[in-house]
């Protein structure tokens, strides 16, 4: 069946002579091969292949929606108030939160006891980041490192999500006292 394509290759005389064009192609691939070989012989990194999981690709965009992190307050406690908005909005149902009550802290009576993100189900849509009212969950450039043979082991627990130690972008400062200056009778 003969069909005309809009991007049908138009070959000139050089291409139709065939053999010279093939030699030119071999020169290109050969030069890359020998260039990489030379780098490898001189103990440098050759081709741009990243050997996952031992190596991490270096060319992720700074805006990459990679793994999730939980931000922290100034005193090092988790920022999350366990409101479950992220878990509710998650289209993959991959976030599971177990809350705990702290009756001593009037301002943060609710906190996550367990916070599990199932990376075998996560689709990296970023809805959880958008839904969070506390800027507690973010997605950073790094990717979740979960090479595993078993889907059940791909859950990121709370301590893994909390191990983010940024140097340039610290977690926002969270008011531990009401901003209107009035002291809560229960905080005094």
């Amino acid at each position, binding site marked *: 069946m003969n069909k005309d394509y809009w991007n049908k290759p138009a070959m000139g005389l050089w291409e139709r002579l065939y053999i010279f064009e093939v030699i030119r192609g071999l020169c290109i691939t050969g030069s890359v091969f020998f260039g990489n070989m030379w780098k490898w012989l001189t103990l440098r990194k050759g081709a741009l292949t990243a050997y996952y999981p031992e190596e991490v690709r270096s060319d992720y965009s700074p805006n990459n929606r990679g793994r999730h992190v939980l931000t922290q307050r100034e005193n090092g406690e988790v920022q999350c*108030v*366990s*409101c*479950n*908005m992220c878990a*509710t909005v998650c289209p993959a*149902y991959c976030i*599971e939160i*177990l*809350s*705990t*009550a702290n*009756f001593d802290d*009037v301002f943060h*009576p*609710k906190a996550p006891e*367990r916070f*599990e993100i*199932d990376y075998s189900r996560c689709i990296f849509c970023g809805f959880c980041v958008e839904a969070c*009212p*506390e800027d507690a969950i973010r997605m950073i450039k790094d990717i979740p490192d979960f090479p595993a043979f078993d889907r059940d082991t791909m*859950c990121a627990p709370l301590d893994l999500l909390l191990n983010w130690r940024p140097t340039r972008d610290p977690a926002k400062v969270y008011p531990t006292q*009401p901003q*209107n*200056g*009035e002291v*809560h*009778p*229960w905080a005094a």
Partner: protein
Amino acid sequence: MIELTIDNMTVQAHEGETVLQAALKHGIEIPHFCYHPCLSIAGNCRVCLVKVDGRPKLMPSCNLEATPGMRIETVSEEVLAARAAVMQFIILNHPGDCGICDKAGECRVQDYHVRYGEIDPVSIEPKHRKPKLYDLSPRISLDNERCILCSRCVRFTREVSGSHMLGIVERGCHSRVARLEGKVFDDPYSDNIISICPTGALLSRDFLYKSRVWYLEPVRSVCTGCARCCSVNVWRRRKRWHVRSLGAEKNAAAYRITPGENPEINGHWICNKGFDLHKAMGRPRALAPLIAGRSASVEEALQEGMKMLSEAVNPAALISAHASNEELEAFRIALGSRMRVYTREDHSPQPGEVLEDDLLIRADKNPNSRGVRELFGDRPYDATAGHDLVLVWGDLDDYAPLGKARILHLTSFVPPQGQSADLLIPISTVFERSGTFTNFEGKANRFDQVFDKPKLVQHAGELFGGLAA
């Protein structure tokens, strides 16, 4: 009957009925916080304002008696503007911490704010601070900042439970709900104020932060706490929200119990024992058949049970008052003629428990005593009758009063410590089966299956046919 017009719709109302009641009865929605069908009319929240034809100002419909020919408007621009203004005023000092409030999702303030208001208060004053996480009682936590002072809880303790424990103290924006000073809030119906609170001011300390309410769904069940057989809603996790990494036992747990509205039996209320039904059902379970203390498969246990029954010369059965009518009938058909049938009270009142009162609680702490009595009469166990086999159905603390007979025990929970029956077959609890109980008034109340039964546990009603064969 009175005829009046609400939103160009002619509705009928009884003599003395209010406009709000007539509207709700006909499916016309008028928002309301302080009105509750079982409580007196306070008329203090003002969100149910409606326009009455011929009157210069808007009227609260909860406090407005229906009169013939009345013309009411509930959705005119004037009414909607007033409603939005009332909502704006009600949430003036509301903290708006829905994210950490257990009521979010079933909260009237949240719903009406989204539906009718969504105007933020314009006050330049800082929001008033009041005590939070105040332990009103060991069961209830009070957050005065969230309270909108509808006085439903106060009216409940005055009019329904009669304990007069709560009141509203101080004036103006310092007003708050407080319990009687120096007294413990030990009203046996106290948890009902959690259910009737239109906002998150009163929260159950047991359910606090256990789950968001939209992860849960109610299933109609019956309380087994006493012979009243109140309807309850058992809240289980929705299938869509089943957890995986947090542990599968959370998917088969009853998160909380709320009253099931049943005007025939319990109205809108249940007692605190009913609110604790999931704790009673969470006692350690018997999960595998035991032959003389040794675990066995279901087939082995059934074989052993059949053997014991066929060998017995003078068998007796102790019937459980926690069995449903269907199970009792199954027992009567399969084994009723072969065994001497005795009745008993599975549970007697615990020390400190309210024995009986005028509202709901009954002295008989078993749900289906009446159903048992109707089928088998009332005959306590006679140890001198010389029975060589006793089929014990239901919880039993001590085998000693049964004498030297061999014991075939059907129970949901772990048997008494240090004693082992000759054969123990685990049976399902009220959450794991459906059926009916007959309460002390002779009214049958149906319960639905909430959870699947554990694998080795049997439904008692399906056992007797196998045992009799």
